[in-house]
């Protein structure tokens, strides 16, 4: 296959480079696809790989094409939800809290992992690092995930503020990886001296790449926060909302749905109420965020 692709084809098609024409816009499809946004908890390629089965499942059950929408930041995804540009979204805990309080972002279902609907922020350092707490990371390089991330930014900022400082002074340098798995890799590769990551992503990444566990070390675990939920625009048609909710809740009972859940490391989807996110809401209120 490689050899066949290496040689140019014998015939040479004629193309006139100066023959410029306006580009045709995207073909409007007769059936509007269900647009599903996945916030960049993990890297875009990882997201595509993990969510492929879930999206296929939804498309199959709804008899409707499903389109995956990704954006670099949580804020961009929130904006898409607010304007109705996406129908369904997998967002981060803090993004939900902000969205809920801003424009009534509606909680549809929440995943249950290891029998619980909570997750933690894990403070990780390279395996060889001598740091035992956030205090030991003073003057070091720290990797944030997303400016809006609960586990990746809010909680470590909170820890630094508890030490009477602010990230800008406390760390020698900070940078954003915009996804949790990239933050784990940044620490594992020694690019950052520390990072705070989503415990779900960390467990999932370590399960897929066991050597990450050998190259990183957890030095602190936060109190539990409400698990990153599945949300919708408050104006979504009630019929579609009910259909989606029922479909997601019943996925675990279906072999194909079960496989799709396994691919994203979720046992099943469950109903959850907004108060489950109050701890995150409190944290958000307590933390004074600097401009990223």
């Amino acid at each position, binding site marked *: 296959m490689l050899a066949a692709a290496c040689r140019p084809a014998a015939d*040479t098609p004629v193309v*006139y*480079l100066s023959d410029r024409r306006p580009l045709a816009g995207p073909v409007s499809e007769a059936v509007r696809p269900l647009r599903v946004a996945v916030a960049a908890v993990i890297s875009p390629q990882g997201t*595509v790989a993990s969510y492929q089965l879930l999206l296929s499942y939804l498309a199959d059950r709804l008899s409707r094409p499903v389109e995956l929408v990704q954006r670099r930041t949580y804020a961009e995804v929130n904006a898409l939800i607010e304007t109705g540009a996406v129908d369904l979204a997998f967002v981060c805990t803090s993004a939900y809290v902000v969205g809920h309080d801003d424009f009534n972002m509606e909680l549809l279902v929440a995943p249950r992992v290891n029998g619980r609907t909570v997750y933690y922020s894990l403070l990780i350092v390279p395996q060889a690092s001598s740091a035992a707490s956030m205090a030991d990371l003073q003057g070091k390089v720290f990797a944030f995930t997303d400016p809006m991330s609960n586990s990746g930014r809010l909680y470590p900022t909170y820890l630094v503020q508890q030490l009477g400082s602010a990230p800008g002074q406390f760390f020698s340098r900070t940078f954003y990886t915009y996804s949790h798995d990239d933050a784990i890799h940044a620490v594992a590769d020694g690019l950052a001296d520390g990072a705070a990551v989503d415990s779900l992503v960390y467990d999932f990444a370590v399960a897929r790449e066991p050597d990450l566990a050998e190259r990183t070390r957890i030095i602190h675990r936060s109190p539990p926060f409400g698990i990153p939920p599945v949300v919708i625009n408050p104006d979504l048609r009630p019929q579609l909302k009910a259909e989606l909710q029922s479909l997601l809740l019943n996925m675990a009972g279906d072999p194909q749905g079960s496989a799709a859940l396994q691919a994203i490391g979720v046992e099943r989807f469950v109903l959850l109420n907004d108060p489950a996110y109050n701890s995150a809401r409190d944290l958000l209120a307590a933390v004074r965020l600097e401009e990223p």
Partner: protein
Amino acid sequence: MSSPLLTQPGSHSFWLNRLWAVAGAVSIRTKILGIVLGLVLLLGLSVTFQVRATLTRTMDDQLQEQAVSVARDLAARATDLILINDLYALHQLLRETQTNNGNVRYAFVVDEQGNVLAHTFGDGFPGDLLAANSAGPDDHHHTIILSTEEGKVWDTAVPIFEGRAGTARVGLSEVGVRRAVTSVTGQLLLTTILMSVVGVTAAALLTWFLTRPILRLAEAAQAVGQGDLGQRVPRWADDEIGDLADAFNALTETLQRAAAERSERDQLRARYVSGVMAAQEEERKRIARELHDSTSQSLTSLLVGLRALGNACDLPEVQQHVAELRGVAAEALRDVHDLARQLRPSVLDDLGLPAALERYAADWQRRHALTVDLAMRGLKEERLPMEVETALYRIVQEALTNVARHAQATTASVLVERHDGVVRAIIEDDGRGFDPPVAGQTEQRLGLYGIRERAELLGGTLTIESEAGLGSSLFVEIPLPFSQKPGFSAKNLVSTESLNSYPLPHDSHAHPSG
């Protein structure tokens, strides 16, 4: 110039002959220059051609490899940008790709549905480009060559994220490669031209050294051919041409010696012939004088005696005998006079050539019953040297004798004229003529030989014009010494050689052999 090639039959030899006709016609200098120029050009052009072909192939391969690496790099870096729909960053990436890779003509990214997400064309997008190439999800890459109005373009398609995020397309133009190849070709051609100039200059110098002795030899040989046997050439170098120069020098030396010997022999012979002729003339003169002075006087005395005897005796018988004897004596006296005149007309010595020739022409007409026209111009004012007069007299005598004996002519004409230091005699007849190279009978040949000998002894020439049935003409031209006429030397018509021959008859006069 002959060549073994010329003798070979067949169509091959025709072209070889043509080639030789061209190559053989030019000088050695041109041949060597041609060979040097030909070899330098052949070498230069073949190296240029070879380098150009190899360079083109290598650079095309490199271009193709570059196309693949650039496209794969682009595909890898574009993945996340496409997934998070960051079209501005994608556009920046394409522009950077084009900026950082000199040969990249264009780059663009197509999504899964075949929509162009970003491209480097600015305004609009080339119509047929999108459909021209594609890559399957499992392809490493897929490269095709496109023919565009800007030349060939290596278009490489690489699937992005196994095709799930679309396809990256990169087009690498051959323009840079062609420019580099053209530049190298130009430099090689320039080098070839410079080497040709250097080679031709060196060859010109070399051939100048080589052909200078040959040209000098040719000049010397030409001079030898024109009689200058003193030519010698230096031995330029210790090689074949040096040997040739030595051989040439030896040859001319031999020739010079032989020429000197022949000249000496010729002089001796001329001196001998001249001596013989002078002796002959002296002898004739002496016999004629003897006949005139002695025999004529005796016969005259006899006639006087017989007249006295006739007067003294009245006997009719005696009278009749005396009359008869007187007739015999008178006839004998006339014969003796004729004989003396034929041997050496005293009128030639006393009155000069014109009178002698007039007398001879009258005698000849009378004796042979033929007509002769005698015309003389420029002879009256001053007498010619004695030896010239004698020679001309004998030449006319011999020529008219030949006419009478062999030509079967009715009329002859003799013209003797002196003109510009040359005396010329033309003897013509209307007889049967003869073929000059063969020149008739032995006797006639001998006569002509005598005429030529006399003319040449005085530095003159004989020209014979004759054709069977159309009569014959003899042209004799004898130069005169300077002293004969003022302004003669200015004409410079007489060679040293002809002047040298003059003293010989004088010498023979000074020392008569009889």
